[in-house]
Every structure is written in C-alpha cells, then in structure tokens.
C-alpha cells in the first residue's frame, strides 16, 4: 500500500506554519515566565504579610520580655499566612474556620492546657496591661492579647492579599496592631524606631509586590523605599508626639490604695524589739545598706498607712526623681521568718527577679508580693542607691505637696510646731532644718525598747512631753510630724539595719528593725533622716546610720563656714525649683506646619470648587454652585439662614436670587430640574465670584481664605 501523500501545500503555507510555531514557542516561553512570576508573587506576598504581622507583634517588646514575646508572635504571624496561601483557591469560610481552629490550638501551649479562661483573659488583658508596670510578666492571661492581635492581623492581611487586588489594605491590620503596641508600650523601656523602619520597608515591599510588573522593576524602587524609611526614621524622633507620646496609663483607672498587710510594719517594731534574735531574712549583697520594708506616707492621727497604688510588674520598678550619680547594689534576699507581704530591698529597687506575684508602688518603689512567702522564699533585687553631692544637698528644696505636709487636726499640733520651731531656729535652708530636727531628737530623747509602743498623736505627745524615751517607732513618727509642721513633706519608712555579716551574707534579725523618716526634695527625691539615737547615746553602732549622721554633721559644719553665703541662693522654702525647659524642635516643626496650612488653604478651596463643579447628578452640581457662592460671599457656618435670608443680606448681588431659587428647587421641589439648570447655576456662581472679587478688598479675601472656619466648615 503506497504511503499516504502529504496534503498539498501552497507556497505561502510553510512560512505561515513557521511563523505559527515560533509564536507558540514564544507564547509558551511567556506563559512560563508569567507562571514563574505568579509563583514568586504567590510565595512572597504571604511571606511579607507574615513578616508585617510579626514585626507589628514585635512592637510589644516594650511590653513583654523579648524571649517570651517571640514564642507567641512568630507562630501567630506565620500560621495564618500559610493557611491563606494554601487555601487561596478554596472558599473563604473554609480558611476562616481553619484559622479559628488553629488559633485555639495555638493557645493551648500558651496556657499549658486547654482552658476556656482565655476568653475572659482576652477581655481583661487590656485593663490588666494598663495597670501593670512594664515589662509586664509573661503570663498567659496577658500574652493572649498579643497572640490574638497578631493572629488577627495575619489572618486579615493574608486573606485580603490572596483574595483581593487591593494594594495597601493587606498591610493595614498589621499597622493597626503596631499602633496598639506603640500605645501600650509607651511606658516601657527600649525604642520602636528600628521596628517602625522595618515596618515601613515591608509596607514598601508589599506595594511593590502588588504592582503587576516584572521583578526587575524592583531595582530602582528599593532604594526609594530605603530613602523614605531613612527620612521617616530621622524625622520621627523629632516630632513632638514622639517626645511626649500619649500614655493611656495616665487615664487608666488604677487599683485603689488598699491595706496591704493586716498588721502595719510600724506596729510590729516594738514587738520585734522585744524578741530581737528571731531570724527574719538574709541578704547577700556587695555592701551593707538599710533594707527598706514598707513606706508609710499617710497619717490619720492614730496610725501611719501607705497610700501606694501597687501595680503588678514583671520585674521593672520605675526610678524616682533622682537623676544624679548612683551606686548599683545587687542583693539576693532569702526569707527565714519575715511575716507579711512586704519585700525588703535597698532603696531604690529598679529590678526584681524571681519573685512571683510581684507588685510595686511606682511612687515609693516599695515592693510586695501576692504569693505565699514562707521560709526559703528568695528573690534578686538590683537597687540604684542615690549618691548626691554635698552641693546638691545644700541646695535641696522640698517639693510642695499638701498631702505630704498634712497634719491631723488636734491640739497636739501646737506642741509639735513649737518644738520643731525651737529645734530649727536659725536654720535658713530646708536641709539644715531637717538636720537640726534630726539632731534635736537624737540628743533630747533616749532610745528605750521598753518604752510604751504606739504612734498615735497622744502617744507621741506623751513621748515628746513626758517620757523622752521611745523606740524608732516614736522617733521616726515624731520627726515626720514635726517636719510637716515646718512645711517639709515627710513620711515614715520601716526597714532593717544591714544585720550581721557572715560569709558575705547579712543575717537580719528582728532586733535590727528600725523606722526612719524621709523628706522629699525636688530633683533629689526622698532623702532619709535617722532621728533615733543609738542604744548608748547619740552615736549609732551601725555603719549606715553612723555614716549618715557623720555626713549630716559635716554638712552642718560647712553651713557654719561657707554655707551661710551659699544658703542665700537657694529657692524659697516649700516651692519647687522650676524644671528646666526641655529642648524643643518647634523651630523645625512650626515652619512645616505653617507651610502645610498655607498649602491646604491654597489647594482645598480649589479642590472643593472643582469637585462641586464636576459633581453628578445635576442636583448636586446646583447645590455645589450654591455652596460655592455662599463660601465666596463669606456665609460660612450660618446654618439657620434660609436661602432668602442670605439673598436679603446681599442685595447688591443680583445673581444670588435666581441661584437661591434653583437651590430651593433642588432641595424642596418634587419635580426634576429643568435642562441646563446646573450650567445656569454655575454661571450665576461664577458671576457672584467675580462680583465678590471686584468688591472685596484683597486683604479681606486673604483673611477669609486663611480662616480655619472656612477650611473646616465650607
């Protein structure tokens, strides 16, 4: 059988086939490149969204410790992005159901077990975070908020990315979460500058990815993103809001002051002194210091209590007003028999580790725990001990705080005031008054642990007027009250002497208990004063108190020599020294703001007029013409005027009457507008504008144009 002959071909058919083959080859090549580009975009898009969510979550690094935060943020950002990429061709509800299930599954390792508590925790975590000193403890009840927010940002961003063609929208959830993180972390340590820059870069990348262009297009765009990011990073810290950011903690309702211990530590002083050998706790520290236990700043005539508003903290304790030289002291405290919830530490603690249920009073720095504190309970404290210079002490000025100089009503005030005035006669500066008061009590009365306990006004009157014998409970209380009569803001602190040193560990026993007084000075913060004399006279046996007394006596001596001339300089008593003005960048901001406003005043009216003229349908154009005419005539914000009243106010403008009629027709007539009504209205409006320009002086027009009311309420 002969072979089948090939189909007859025309001379031109071979060349067409060749062209067709080439075209198909080219098509396949283009298709492959498109598929390659699409695959590249399909992977890169969700990856960038996940990175955005993770970076936004990293914004919480000022709120939570970094290690714990990362374990929460990374899965919360990654999983939804993967789900979105895998289910891009499936229904949205399927992706969302998967996301919810996985979110619940991811919450299990956070809590350690399945629990429904996360629902209530999620609701309460906002308030809890706002009333917690940062960094907040990495507890599930707080971390669940970050976990959920990042998850939501990743879900929303990734699903928007894979299911829409919107360009910037996939980044918005992450930016919102970052905004939340910024606000919640205002009070925390560290900076968000790098995080903000990273976010900006990623937003730029996302915008580029959403452009339907080849990858080479990225080359010139990436440097542009870098420049924008750099500019933002440089300008950001200069903005006023960055210098003084809004802190929601200022508006958050803090827990009310509560009695944190059933027995006040001051009430325990006499009892502890009666049985002085009971071991209370040990402190391993570099140097001996007085260990502060409780700070009591409110006196009602019967007892001293604390007005501290204790806030939970992950370990950080805010610093006090002192910004000068400090000595860092690290302590490891181990409980032996100390009762109560107060935690001893050297003043001023800045960081505590290892204490469960820790809470701190940001004002006084006093510490307490809500956890059980039995024998062996231990924690580490880092304290910054203030070391003011002699000059700073000499020029110290007490702060003006009526709450800290309040004296309870009673006949005893007269006695306290008289004694205080007698003791401080000749002292011309506050610190000298305090030293004289301290010296007066140390030399006038005697230390006697058998003296009757109590620090009510009656008891203190008995101590100062009759017995002249007491313990540090009476000495410190008397000092604080006498100082208050002089206008010095004073409080009582209960703590312990350093204790007996043995192998680098200080063993504190109940006999080491001591109360002392503190006075608050501007910039210096609270300074301690020790009015309690030693057991054998005015000198104290312990290092801390003795050195403090020696220092005060030395300063007193200097007052006698050169201090008199210096003493004339300090600011008046009781009035705080004004805080030095912080450097401002208004000279940069102000011209920018003015330029922006001028630009707005120039562009906004033009833009409004343009959009009014081009509005559809005709009814809107007519109303636009009417509003434009009203704006040109300066009728702004007078909403109670009818069209006729506006016409009556401008009798010289002839075109206003027919324009008002058209406007009324649009607003209130049932039928449609006549043809060309919109053009007619704009002809009237233009005529009115021309009339206004002719008849209104340039200065008046400029004033009108720059008037914020005109810009805001057209």
């Amino acid at each position, binding site marked *: 059988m002969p072979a089948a002959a090939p189909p007859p071909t025309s001379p031109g058919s071979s060349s067409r086939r060749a062209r067709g083959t080439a075209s198909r080859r080219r098509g396949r090549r283009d298709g492959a490149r498109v598929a390659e580009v699409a695959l590249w975009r399909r992977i890169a898009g969700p990856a960038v969204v996940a990175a955005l969510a993770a970076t936004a979550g990293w914004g919480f690094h000022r709120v939570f410790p970094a290690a714990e935060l990362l374990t929460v943020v990374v899965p919360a950002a990654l999983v939804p992005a993967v789900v979105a990429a895998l289910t891009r061709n499936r229904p949205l509800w399927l992706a969302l159901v998967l996301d919810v299930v996985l979110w619940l599954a991811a919450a299990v390792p956070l809590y350690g077990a399945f629990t429904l508590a996360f629902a209530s925790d999620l609701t309460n975590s906002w308030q809890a975070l706002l009333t917690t000193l940062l960094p907040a403890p990495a507890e599930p009840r707080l971390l669940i908020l970050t976990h959920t927010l990042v998850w939501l940002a990743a879900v929303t961003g990734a699903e928007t990315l894979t299911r829409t063609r919107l360009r910037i929208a996939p980044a918005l959830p992450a930016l919102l979460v970052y905004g939340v993180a910024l606000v919640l972390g205002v009070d925390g340590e560290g900076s968000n500058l790098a995080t903000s820059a990273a976010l900006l870069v990623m937003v730029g990348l996302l915008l580029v990815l959403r452009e339907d262009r080849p990858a080479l297009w990225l080359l010139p765009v990436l440097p542009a993103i870098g420049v924008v990011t750099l500019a933002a990073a440089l300008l950001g810290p200069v903005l006023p809001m960055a210098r003084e950011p809004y802190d929601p903690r200022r508006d958050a309702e803090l827990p009310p002051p509560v009695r944190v211990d059933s027995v006040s530590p001051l009430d325990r002083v006499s009892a502890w002194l009666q049985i002085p050998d009971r071991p209370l706790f040990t402190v391993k520290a570099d140097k001996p210091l007085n260990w502060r236990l409780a700070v009591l700043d409110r006196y009602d005539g019967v007892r001293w209590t604390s007005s501290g508003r204790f806030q939970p903290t992950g370990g950080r304790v805010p610093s006090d007003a002192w910004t000068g030289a400090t000595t860092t002291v690290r302590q490891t405290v181990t409980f032996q028999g100390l009762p109560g919830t107060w935690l001893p530490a050297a003043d001023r603690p800045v960081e505590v580790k290892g204490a469960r249920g820790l809470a701190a009073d940001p004002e006084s720095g006093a510490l307490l725990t809500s956890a059980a504190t039995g024998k062996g309970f231990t924690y580490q404290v880092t304290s910054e001990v203030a070391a003011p210079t002699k000059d700073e002490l000499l020029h110290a000025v007490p702060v003006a705080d009526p709450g800290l100089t309040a004296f309870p009503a009673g006949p005893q005030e007269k006695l306290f005031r008289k004694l205080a005035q007698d003791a401080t006669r000749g002292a011309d500066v506050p610190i000298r008054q305090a030293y004289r008061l301290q010296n007066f009590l140390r030399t006038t009365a005697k230390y006697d642990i058998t003296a009757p306990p109590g620090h009510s006004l009656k008891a203190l009157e008995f101590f100062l007027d009759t017995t002249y014998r007491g313990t540090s409970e009476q000495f410190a209380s008397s000092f604080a009250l006498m100082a208050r009569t002089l206008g010095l803001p004073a409080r009582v602190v209960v703590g312990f002497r350093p204790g007996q040193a043995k192998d680098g560990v200080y063993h504190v026993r109940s006999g080491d208990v001591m109360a002392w007084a503190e006075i608050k000075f501007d910039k210096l913060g609270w300074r301690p004063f020790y009015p309690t004399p030693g057991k054998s006279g005015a000198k104290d046996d312990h290092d801390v108190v003795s050195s403090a007394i020696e220092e005060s006596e030395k300063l007193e001596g200097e007052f006698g020599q050169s201090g008199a001339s210096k003493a004339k300089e300090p600011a008046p008593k009781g009035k705080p020294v004004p805080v030095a003005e912080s450097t401002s960048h208004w000279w940069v901001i102000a011209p920018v703001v003015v330029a922006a406003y001028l630009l707005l005043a120039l562009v906004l009216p033009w833009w409004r007029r343009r959009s009014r003229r081009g509005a559809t349908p005709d009814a809107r154009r007519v109303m636009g013409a009417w509003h434009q005419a009203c704006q040109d005539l300066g009728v702004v914000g007078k*909403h*109670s*005027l009818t069209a*006729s009243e506006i016409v009556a106010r401008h009798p010289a403008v002839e075109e206003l009457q027919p324009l008002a009629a058209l406007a009324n027709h649009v*607003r*209130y*007539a*049932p039928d449609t507008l006549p043809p060309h009504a919109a053009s007619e209205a704009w002809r009237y409006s233009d005529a009115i504008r021309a009339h206004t320009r002719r008849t209104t002086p340039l200065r008046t027009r400029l004033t009108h144009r720059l008037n914020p009311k005109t810009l805001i309420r057209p």
Partner: protein
Amino acid sequence: MAGQFAQRFQLMAGNIERAIRGKREAVELALVCLFSEGHLLMEDVPGTGKTTLARSVAASVDAEWRRIQFTPDLLPSDITGVSIFNQAHQKFEFHQGPVFANIVLADEINRASPKTQSALLEVMEERRVTVDAEPHPVPRPFMVVATQNPVDMDGTYPLPEAQLDRFLMKISVGYPDHYSEVEILKAGPQVDRLPQVARASDVAAMIDFAGQIHVADPVYDYIVALVASTRTNPNLRLGASPRASLALLRASRVRAASTGRHYVVPEDVKALAVPVIAHRLILTPEAELRQRTAADVLGEVMAGMPVPQAA
C-alpha cells in the same frame, strides 16, 4: 396653577390694600389665613383698621358675611341661632344666627362673657352648630375674623387658651406710616366701594389647591422640630401643640402658592412661625418680668435652628 393662585392672591391683596393703606403684610397674612381655612385674631389699639381689614376681606369676596358686635350681654343663641316653635307646623324650626356666613366678623370678642365666647368654639373647629342635638353645618369657605383691644381691659374676658389655639393666626395691624395716613385722609373710607374680585367658589377652589402644595420631608421635620422646641424652651411655661404644627403647615402651603411656587421652602415656615405660633405660647413669670415676648423667644429658637440642607 401655582401661578394662577399667586395672580388671584395678589389681586385680592391689592384690592384690600385700597382700603387698608400701607399694610400689605397684614393683608397678605389675613389672606393666607383665609386660604388656609383658618380663623384670624387681630389685636391692636382702637382705630388702626382691624375692623376695616376684616370688612375689606369680606367685601373683596362675593360671599356672605356677618358682623357680630360682642358685648357683655350677648347670649350664645345670639350667635348660633335659636329653635322657635312654629305653631302653624306644630314643630320647632331652627333660625340661623349670624355665624352662618362665609366670613364672620367678631368685633371686640373679649367683651363677651366666656359662655358666649365658647359658643364659637364648636363652630370654629367643627364648622357646624349643634342645636337641640341637631348639627347645622356652616357654609364653605368659613372664616372667623375676631378683633380685640389690648388696652381698656375693664369689663373684658380674656380668651381662654383653648379658644386662642383655634385661631390660626394672631396679627397686629399697627399704625400706618406718614405717607399711608395722608393717603387715607385723601381717599376717605373705601370699604364700601371695593369691587368683589373673587367668588366664594373661587376661594374654596383656591383652598383645595393650596392643600396640594408639595412639602418635602425635611420641611416636615423642620416644622415639627420648631414646634417641639417651644415645648422644652426654659422661657416658656406652655409650648405649642400639634394643632400649631398643622396650622403652620397649612399656612406655609398657602404662602408658597401665593408666591407662585408649588412647593414649600423653609422661608415660608419661618415667615409664618410668629403669627401662627406665638399666641399659643405662655411665657414663664421670669421671662415676663424680663419683658420678653413670645415672639422674641420664637425668634431666638429659629435663629438657633438649622434649616434643612438637603431634600
């Protein structure tokens, strides 16, 4: 149609103005009242033309009009009519009183006793008189034009609130200006020489037309908000009732038609708010002591109330 309405309205107003010189506003308000099927109360000092205005309105329309001079001894039956036993037919026959007319001029209405004043209540609202349990409707159009004198209050009986509320408007005529008064002196009384420029049926048709004038929803809202604000104003002991809202709406429609418009605009409402609402308001004693008037308070309310901005 609105144009024809406006034309006739202006014709009647011009006609009446030949008798009442220089009082165009009062004339137009009286006509608005007529075409709203409302009743008009005119309060002013003697000699300002209250009666003349009322007579002129009546004289311009080819309709039946009656005048009742209210005196303390006037009896209700003197107004409404009375049933008299007809011996020939052995039955009671109703003899219509002067209220059975298209336009009734109740002159010095506050001089009659409250009992007689109240005889007008039913006929003003229901437009019928009931005698011996038998209703007798009054003709259409029907309008009571009452006058009263604010001075010389001895022996007068102030109108109760319920009756005041039945008057659609309360207006004052006021003294004419110098030029108008000179014209009055030159021309002399003109009322009896006024031509009749409309028939009663024309007036009824115009009333029907005015009732169809379009009112946009925002204007309804504006009327209700305006009236409601009088109920919460601290200077007012008694605010306006929903009857006031209805009256203001009717009058606004007529005013819109009188200017040739077939839709109401807020200007209509604002222009009529004081004559329609003010007489229904009662000031607090404190506001009275501060020499405030209801019109002042209403003006303040309107000045603070935004007009509707969009249909």
